[in-house]
């Protein structure tokens, strides 16, 4: 900027007076347009290459294959499925299996992670060191290796179906998994589910009312305990009114395998255990950091104003600790969901495994990989949206 300062007037400093290449605003526009053009050019180049390659190799494109018959069986499924169904059905089965293992995995991980995290802070030397050892070992071994390990343990240490362990009436444990009896399906089960939902709704209303009353009169209403009681009593009442049906669907060894009851397969269990044990080590560290982030003074202050230990935990420690815990916890839960894609290595029919077979049979790799990415992106995005909402709520409560 070699200009005579004496003639620097306001008009001189207007954007029009600056050469276009020095104007940050204009430069930004040029820069952005160039970047977009570059991205577009590269995409077009790849697209045209792909088009010509697909044509030359006469690979079909589009998602028409979804309607074709899949022709392969899937080991376990939440919904009815057979080889005569379409690829779309097969992929749905895979997606539901992914959701199943991730959902149960997330819940168990939070529980185990919290336990280990608290154990790490325990005053008991043995417990604390064991927790520390657990965290170090689990964090530092690739999860894929752990999955191989768990699976080997499952099928090698349990007996065959004919020698199945039978610890309780109607429960069998063998290398085909854990098989247990469930109540035979009855019309009242639906009513019981509705009764439970109704209990939750009443509990929610009670909680609101209790808070308002507490704000006005200072009296505390035990909403949580009442809701829990309702949640047990209402479905039980429905069951008694329906004549308390007790028929059970007990698994039975017929031919090669058990029929009836519910089977938890070794593949599912190995994947679940591997993911839970691995991720819980990270969650434990997060929980520990969260608890340690609440200063001792906060607890002492809460006790000084006369709160009971339960209230100290509920009203003082948790809201502050959760604010530290939730964001990293979210990313760990997403990691667990993404790592469930390793199912393919131990034969659990998750979405990636089913898509992999589909790619193999149809040769349509692009569509297959795109589907995998799409489904995981939608898992991730919906989880982050939920967690963002939750975060905001926590932040509001805190301030």
């Amino acid at each position, binding site marked *: 900027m070699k200009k005579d300062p004496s003639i620097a007037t306001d008009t001189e400093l207007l954007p029009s007076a600056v050469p276009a290449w020095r104007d940050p605003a204009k430069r*930004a526009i040029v*820069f*952005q*347009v160039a*970047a*977009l053009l570059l*991205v577009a050019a590269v995409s077009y180049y*790849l697209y045209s*290459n*792909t088009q*010509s*390659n*697909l044509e*030359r190799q006469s690979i079909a494109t589009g998602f028409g294959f979804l309607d074709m018959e899949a022709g392969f069986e899937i080991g376990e499924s939440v919904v009815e499925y057979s080889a005569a169904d379409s690829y779309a059905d097969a992929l749905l089965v895979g997606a539901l299996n992914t959701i199943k293992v991730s959902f149960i995995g997330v819940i168990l991980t939070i529980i185990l992670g919290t336990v280990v995290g608290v154990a790490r802070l*325990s*005053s*008991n*030397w*043995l*417990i604390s060191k*064991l927790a520390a050892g657990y965290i*170090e*070992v689990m*964090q*530092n*071994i*690739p*999860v*894929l*290796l*752990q999955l*191989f*390990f768990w699976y*080997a343990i499952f099928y090698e240490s349990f007996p065959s179906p004919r020698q199945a362990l039978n610890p309780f009436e109607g429960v069998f444990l063998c290398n085909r998994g854990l098989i247990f009896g469930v109540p035979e399906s009855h019309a009242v089960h639906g009513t019981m589910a509705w009764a439970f939902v109704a209990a939750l709704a009443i509990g929610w209303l009670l909680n609101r009312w209790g808070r308002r009353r507490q704000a006005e009169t200072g009296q505390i209403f035990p909403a949580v305990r009442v809701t829990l009681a309702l949640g047990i009593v209402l479905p039980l009442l429905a069951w008694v009114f329906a004549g308390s049906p007790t028929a059970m669907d007990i698994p039975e060894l017929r031919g090669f395998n058990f029929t009836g009851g519910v089977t938890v397969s070794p593949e599912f269990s190995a994947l679940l255990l591997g993911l839970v044990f691995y991720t819980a080590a990270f969650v434990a560290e997060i929980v520990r950091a969260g608890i340690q982030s609440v200063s001792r003074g906060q607890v002492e202050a809460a006790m000084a104003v006369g709160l009971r230990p339960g209230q100290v935990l509920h009203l003082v420690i948790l809201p502050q600790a959760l604010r530290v815990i939730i964001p990293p916890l979210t990313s760990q839960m*997403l990691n667990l969901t*993404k*790592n469930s*894609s*390793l199912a*393919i*290595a131990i034969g659990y029919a998750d979405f*990636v495994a089913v898509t*992999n077979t589909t*790619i193999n049979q149809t040769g349509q*790799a*692009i569509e*297959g*990989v795109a589907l*995998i*990415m799409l489904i*995981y*992106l939608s*898992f*991730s*995005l919906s989880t982050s949206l939920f967690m963002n909402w939750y975060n905001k709520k926590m932040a509001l409560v805190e301030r």
Partner: protein
Amino acid sequence: MSAPNTPPSREYLKPPVTEVGVLGWLRTNLFNTWYNSLLTVSVMLILLQVVPPFFSWAFIDSVWNTPSEACRDIDGACWSVIPQNISFILFGFFPDGEQWRPGSAMLLLLGLVFYSKNSKHWKKSLGVYWLIGLVVMGTLMYGGVFGMQVVETAQWSGLPLTFMLSFFGMVAAYPLGVVLALGRQSRMPAIKTLCVVYIEMIRGVPLISLLFMSSIMFPLFLPEGVTIDKVLRAQVAIILFTAAYIAEVVRGGLQAMPRGQFEAADSLGLNYNQTMRLIILPQALKIVIPPSLGILLSAFKDTSLVVIIALYDVLKTTKVTLSNPKWTAYSTEAYIFLAVLYFICCYAMSSYSRKLEKTLHTGR
């Protein structure tokens, strides 16, 4: 309370035996409350059930270096699967008799890593040492000079491949990650959108989908007759994946920069490039060294996924060894060996990262 002549005698009053020494330690650390005592006892009982059988399986009834036939009749572990196949597990297809080359390249890498651990050595010269070291390692691996036989990159496998994929994954991803992080903080909407979409998309999908992309989709993107080596494609996938995570770590560092730093740079008349290069990035990147090591750690663990696209990293060479009928039955032993190998590398990295975090923290 007491007579004035008591103080000297107090020095002779020892604390009760239950408060000091082994007993005191036990009391304060294991049996301080009734439920802690209960926990201690039950954990001990479980450990007694688990540890001795494992110990005798692993160390007493085991064999260490025998042909596979000798393993059939023993109750313990057959560790022989490791020494009998060690050269293939560690170095894969590297030609027999030339394996001192990847071996010494690994040692050189180890030496460099140890040298770099000391933050006193973080100077320009360190970069030069690394550059020289990498060239020497490359020469050792590739050969072609000093009478060393040429070994194609396709034959680099086993542990060197694992290290290569994670190390270059990190090194090449770092600049890309920094650019992405700056882009995400940028005030230009188009750039910001591009970076956000890229980062969130990559972070939203599992690495395995990118590896699938590199192995079965990417060949379709190239013009006819042009192919890119399989290992390189996987390497690119790992780089693209790691960059998104680095971008988020670096963004954390950028956000931790006080506003005053930017304003001070502005008031000195520095432009954007100068501000970033001279003021912001040197400080921000220093803050993010420990979390970056965390990413290197997960990149290292994640390279094991290339086994799914048939690259011969150390997990794949182990699995191939186990497909040999002679050794199929001893996968537990082989997996334990690998777990220990990975654990040593990862534990070294993570404990170093923690130590660094402490020293850097006190430095500020």
